[in-house]
């Protein structure tokens, strides 16, 4: 049994949150650079270049790359041989997020769903924990903006709709979103599981690098075909029309019920901010 004080987790997460708010992930930046190079639409190309210039400005001045510094999504895979000591994990996580959003001059974007009263410190974080083997903790941090989150969908398909149904659900979601979620988007897709695990899989898919492929061949082919079809929609960067409407499609899967085929599509804007660490 390995003892880990939650203050160590909090300190690690604090640094991750500060870095994530200011920087695009390397795979996202590479995909944007490649899109700016290849884009044939004039206005879309201008917008892509502006977005790349923005990421340099953000780094130069230590400013958030996007003002929507998001809801703080924290996914922790905790080895079952770990014994957590100290402050309760949830309290430690919220403390780290509270400090990072204050010290980073990040926007506080979390509010009561009914009164719309802002909590004032961007807490609570969205904390998911999974118990895995071993004595380590893997932390993934994804500050998630809501312009894109708002365009996400979950559809319960019939099993007979199969792969074609999955692909058209993904493509239609991006089509309906149009210019609103800040395209070019990254599409996180959950396939299978139950209603709740399907949405979680879609979120986890966004933790993968932009341009990576699912190790399962038939799932990777769904990613590939969906991406091709999305980029034929001619929505383009910011909806200004062009060749690049999505930078990538990442699918994750889980076994499901014989009666169902849940598909969750979690839309991520072009501003992918994600940090990972292992303790």
């Amino acid at each position, binding site marked *: 049994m390995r003892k880990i004080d939650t203050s160590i987790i909090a300190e690690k997460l604090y640094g991750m949150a500060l870095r994530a708010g200011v920087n695009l992930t390397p795979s996202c930046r590479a995909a944007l650079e490649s899109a700016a190079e290849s884009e044939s639409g004039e206005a879309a190309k201008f917008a892509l270049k502006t977005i790349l210039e923005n990421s340099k400005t953000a780094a130069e*001045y230590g400013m958030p790359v996007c*003002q929507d510094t998001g809801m703080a999504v924290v996914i922790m895979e905790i080895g079952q041989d770990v014994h957590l000591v100290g402050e309760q994990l949830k309290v430690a996580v919220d403390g780290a997020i509270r400090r990072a959003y204050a010290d980073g001059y990040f926007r506080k974007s979390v509010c009561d769903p009914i009164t719309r009263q802002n909590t004032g410190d961007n807490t609570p974080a969205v904390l998911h924990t999974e118990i895995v083997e071993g004595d380590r903790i893997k932390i993934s941090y994804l500050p998630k903006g809501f*312009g894109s989150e708002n365009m996400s969908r979950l559809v319960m398909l019939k099993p007979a709709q199969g792969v074609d149904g999955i692909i058209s659900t993904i493509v239609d979601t991006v089509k309906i979103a149009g210019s609103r979620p*800040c395209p070019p988007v990254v599409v996180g897709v959950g396939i299978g599981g139950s209603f709740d695990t399907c949405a979680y899989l879609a979120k986890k898919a966004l933790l993968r690098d932009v341009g990576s492929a699912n190790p399962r061949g038939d799932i990777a082919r769904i990613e590939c075909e969906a991406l091709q079809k999305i980029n034929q929609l001619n929505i383009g960067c910011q909806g*200004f029309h062009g060749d690049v409407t999505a930078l990538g499609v990442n699918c994750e899967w889980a076994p499901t019920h014989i009666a169902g085929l849940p598909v969750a599509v979690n839309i991520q804007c072009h501003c992918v901010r994600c940090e990972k660490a292992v303790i």
Partner: protein
Amino acid sequence: MKKLNLPLGEDTILSLKAGDSVLLSGTILTARDCAHKRICEILDRGEKLPFELEGAIIYYAGPCPAKPGMASGSCGPTTSSRMDSFAPKLLDLGLGGMIGKGEMSAEVQKALVRNKKVYFAAIGGAGALYGRAIKKSECVAFADLLSEAVYRLEVVDFPAVVAYDSFGNSIY
């Protein structure tokens, strides 16, 4: 790229076509979801707004706090379609135009044509660049709404694209 000073005169508005790239300089007001709700509640009660609506350009945005020594934090546009239900009414009451990102409703487009006004698209996700284009920021209403309050911004060479022009044309 056209350089425009705010407020926009009618001749300037009529010269703008969907797809034109512009650099805006002058005064704009931020307002997003909660501020719009309050603005419309005040107007419904027949009371006076705490700022001048006539000719004002509303920027659908909620800034990050400014770091010490900076005029503003990151401040890119938010999704405009969430303000679809408010924009026609405000345009009919004299609003000078809007800046945001993404498509808006057919009713908003009609209200722009009816009032000879323009909707500009800023580049979503370019928050740091827009923050640097803001030279002065002052909260003028609803301070309790934090980033959703109304801020009066002085901007210089703020890049945008004419999304909907005053003739009913659209870039989308």
